[in-house]
């Protein structure tokens, strides 16, 4: 309903990806809007991680079209994605335990003064970012990541993604390993990111998380995007049905012509044939 009103920040159309004989992504369309949390749901093996890795440039899609801010773009590697302002917070966090918070946040993109690392600047920027995200749980930005709790690590990983003036932040199961209180903290943070105008993609298995923060839900089923709907328009049970069966009432797989839902299976891009 809303997807056509304003142009999505990132549009993916007709994405195909296979590993050998296994077709993992099949004609997937995916739209990410600024200022919104888009929940990407699907069962294990539905292709969520593959889709994210295509966006981040770790995998290259076999076919399909990427548009960023309306312009066609090509993402060939993580650097390309980072250049566009796309940051991914992985499930396994990708933090170095033996480094401190500042070092982790700037890893691979350190500020330098000549040969030497510009520690004061990085430290100030890191604490700035954390305080901007209203993170108060971290004692010192010079703490080793090894000494942080699961929620704090997730916070650092998210702050790392935000530090770079990023426009799209993709979170892969950010609450999977967290307790109740920490989950609430992280979800709050996710919501705050969207409210600041970022486009946020939340990959989650947890329906409570999805309904707590997301504006829209995109459901993958066996490598196909079966629905992209407003969270407010669907119920808990419907999303679960979409995940497990690929359809729910008039939303989902067999109901091919449902323009009202913003599901567009009929748009077959030319690239798909290649």
């Amino acid at each position, binding site marked *: 309903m809303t997807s056509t009103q304003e142009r999505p920040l990132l549009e993916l159309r007709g994405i195909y990806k296979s590993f050998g004989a296994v077709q993992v992504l099949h004609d997937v369309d995916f739209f990410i809007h600024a200022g919104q949390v888009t929940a990407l749901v699907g069962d294990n093996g539905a292709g969520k991680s593959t889709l994210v890795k295509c966006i981040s440039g770790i995998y290259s899609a076999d076919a399909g079209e990427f548009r960023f801010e309306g312009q066609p773009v090509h993402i060939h590697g*993580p*650097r390309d994605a*980072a250049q566009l302002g796309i940051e991914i917070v*992985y499930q*396994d*966090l*990708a*933090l*170095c*335990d*033996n*480094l401190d918070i500042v*070092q*982790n946040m700037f*890893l*691979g*993109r*350190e500020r*330098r003064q000549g*040969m*030497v*690392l510009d*520690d*004061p*600047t990085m*430290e*100030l*920027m890191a*604490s*700035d*970012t954390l*305080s*901007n*995200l209203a993170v108060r749980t971290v004692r*010192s930005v*010079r703490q*080793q990541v*090894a*000494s942080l709790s699961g929620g704090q690590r997730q916070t650092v990983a998210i702050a790392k993604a*935000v*530090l770079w*003036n*990023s*426009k799209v932040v993709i979170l892969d199961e950010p609450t999977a390993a967290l307790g109740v209180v920490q989950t609430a903290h992280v979800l709050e943070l996710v919501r705050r990111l969207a409210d*600041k*105008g*970022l486009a946020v993609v939340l990959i989650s298995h947890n329906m409570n998380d999805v309904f707590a923060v997301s504006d829209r839900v995109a459901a993958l089923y066996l490598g196909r995007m079966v629905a992209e709907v407003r969270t407010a328009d669907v119920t808990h049970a419907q999303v679960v049905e979409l995940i497990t069966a690929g359809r729910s009432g008039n939303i989902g797989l067999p109901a091919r012509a449902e323009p009202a839902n913003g599901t567009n299976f009929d748009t077959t891009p030319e690239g798909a044939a290649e």
Partner: protein
Amino acid sequence: MTTLGTPVSAPAATPAPVSSYVSGYFRRVRGGEMGALPAILGLVVLCTVFSIVRPVFLTPGNFANLLPQGAAVTVIAMGLIFVLLLGEIDLSAGFTSGVCASILALALSEQGLPWYAAILIAMLVGTLIGTTLGALVAKVGIPSFVVTLAAFLAFQGVVLLLIKGGTIVAIRDPVVLAIGNKNVPPLLGWALFALGVAAYAAIQLLRVATRRRRGVSHDPIGLVLLRVAALTIVGGAAVYILNVERSRNVLITSLKGVPIVVPIVVVLLIVLTFVLKRTGYGLHIYAVGGNREAALRAGINTDRIRISAFMICSTMAAIGGIITASRNNSVDANTGGSNVLLYAVGAAVIGGTSLFGGKGRILDAVLGGAVVAVIDNGMGLMGYSSGVKFIVTGTVLLLAAGVDALSRRRAATAGLR
């Protein structure tokens, strides 16, 4: 997006008192982060025992002997730390030093090259060896254990071929011989010492001043002064002792001053510590060792980092080989062989570098190298055979590796790792 914005002045970072640093240190030690503590305690215990059992251990002459004895192992260990930080190992470092020492000896004796050219060639051969090992590990994907074990055997053969079986190649170049055998004139020794302390103090204070000006946390001045004072006392005492006349008969020859290898080791210590702690490259070494996947995702070229670490390791092994050759006045089939590699790995681990990667400092090589040298020297003075020395050193290495493994477990339960 306003998250980046202009740097808002952070809450005025008031330096914590020194006492909180001390209590923080003890908390880390209890949590399994022992750092240099085992090495320093070991040094104190060993020195005490040896000086009681063999008073000659504590003489300036023996002290001056001990330093060049431990220098080669320490230098090789410094290089090994780069490889160990990545969670890899270089078992061939000992014989790499042997190969480079042979090349140095041959370049001097057979080719008649000047000393600087011979040293340069030996070091370049080291770099080349490291590049090859690193490429085999990073690009081909053979485990470093296997690559360097193969190289260990092969280089042993290369040394034999280079020096044509059992011969001994003597070194006569005075400059090369001076590295391991001569001393810095006493006055120059004091001057270098003063320069070192002044530079250390200046760098530390400048750093605190910069960080304070920028409003970020910094070490309290008291702690910095404490460090400078400790360096002054320990270094000053060492220079003083080494400047005492230690010749048996002053009329024949005067023997005093800091051995030339000491400033060499100190310079290597400073340069490599700077590389590891202050540059992006050093940070990336730690990152790759801590979590290679994370480093990869951060856009770090992990293959390049790994190859470069092996290059540094083998180049340092070459320098160690040059020191060994100089110290022994010759190169033979055993140069860099037998216990050299295990002593070097032992030095790094005893100093506190982890075999699991991601944790270690260049200073560890110096502290651990001192422990190894003291054991070797002290047990030699007590008249024990090489067999006993090897067993004791092996036990100490095992002990250090055990401390490393246990402290990791301790740290895991304490939530530090």
